[in-house]
């Protein structure tokens, strides 16, 4: 409750080595989602128990869009004194709302930071994602594996298809190089390093 599960998510992410991915902590993730549901349930419970005047003020400040009512005008019309109508229910609902958005930020930060690392991996590995060792693939969720492939496909849109991709690496030259086993070649480092296993 009150963001206790949510704040553990960035801690879990930060506890890993910088730039390295830990396995997705689905247990903590699901517990944080459950905490958000509890917060939302309590907000709705507290809203129903507020008196009309407090409800109008609080919904004006926090939930006017939920109720679909222009409560500011209604308050002015009824001459209600806003500041004297706050009570424990009002502040309780506000605390639950703040906890909920705190948890949302933690969840989004966790997913976003993991997606950053996955995207960085995509720039290095490219379309050879499926050739990654199983130890690395196990750390990725199915959704993250899709994130790996799609940005690289977007990059090819920027620079055209395979021809321009080749242009980025080799220029417009049509030179090719054939390697046979145990043969020795004198190549530039930038050309040879792609083939070093």
């Amino acid at each position, binding site marked *: 409750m009150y963001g206790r599960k949510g704040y553990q998510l960035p801690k879990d992410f930060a506890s890993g080595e910088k730039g390295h991915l830990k396995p997705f902590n689905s247990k903590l993730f699901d517990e944080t989602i459950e905490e958000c549901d509890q917060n939302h349930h309590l907000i709705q419970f507290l809203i129903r128990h507020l008196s009309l005047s407090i409800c109008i003020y609080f919904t004006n400040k926090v*939930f006017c869009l939920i109720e679909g009512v222009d409560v500011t005008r209604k308050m002015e019309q009824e001459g209600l004194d806003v500041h004297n109508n706050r009570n424990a229910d009002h502040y309780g609902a506000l605390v639950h709302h703040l906890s909920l958005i705190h948890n949302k930020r933690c*969840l989004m930060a966790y997913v976003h930071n993991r997606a950053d690392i996955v995207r960085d991996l995509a720039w290095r590995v490219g379309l050879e994602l499926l050739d990654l060792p199983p130890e690395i693939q196990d750390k990725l969720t199915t959704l993250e594996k899709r994130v790996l492939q799609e940005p690289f496909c977007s990059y090819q849109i*920027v620079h055209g298809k395979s021809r321009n991709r080749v242009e980025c690496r080799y220029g417009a030259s049509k030179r090719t190089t054939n390697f046979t086993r145990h043969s020795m070649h004198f190549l530039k480092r930038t050309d040879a390093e792609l083939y070093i296993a």
Partner: protein
Amino acid sequence: MASSSDMGSADFESLSSTSDVELLKRAWRNEKAAPEILPYEGDLVERAKGQIELVEENIEAYVENGIDPLVVSLYQMDLDRTQFLLRSYLRVRLLKIEKFMFHSLKSEEAESRLSEQEKVFARRCADDLAKHFEESVLRKLPENYQSVLKQSLISEVDDMVPEPHLDTFVACRSKSHFTLNLYEEGESTQTEEMYRGDLYFIRYKIVKGAIESGKMDLI
């Protein structure tokens, strides 16, 4: 004699500083050092690509004609350097677009800094990431908290969109003598005289206008 050779070297320096390679180098340095994405140098990139293709054709012709391999390798090295500059310039921009993709598409001013292809890339990246957020997180949250850009429905601004930090300190060099306002309009009228060749370590947002107009370069 000395004065004519000084004039000659000054002319050479001003001439070489306006060559496309030097302009590309300047654009690349500014893009690397700036915390936000700068306006796209479309004409410069097109000219650089044209020159790269021309040099590649020349090198192929030299090889076929049996020109000294040392001379060919020197041309090749120069070509590689230019290609690296161009690729790195584009790569730095793409990385910034990925980092601030929602911010890049938020306003017309931000979007106008991108090339047409970069806009396509940014839109696709933003759609992919928004879809990823929706499927991983947002659909599991209560209804009024499912926005990608806002914390909740009652947020007045897009408070979930990361923006570049324009208060970052940057190192820059002045290219001419001019007067710089140290504060934004309406805050203070304090100014500083910037002299040609001097180095400054200053907040980026103060020199942003000077960099985009070419009066200063980032290093």
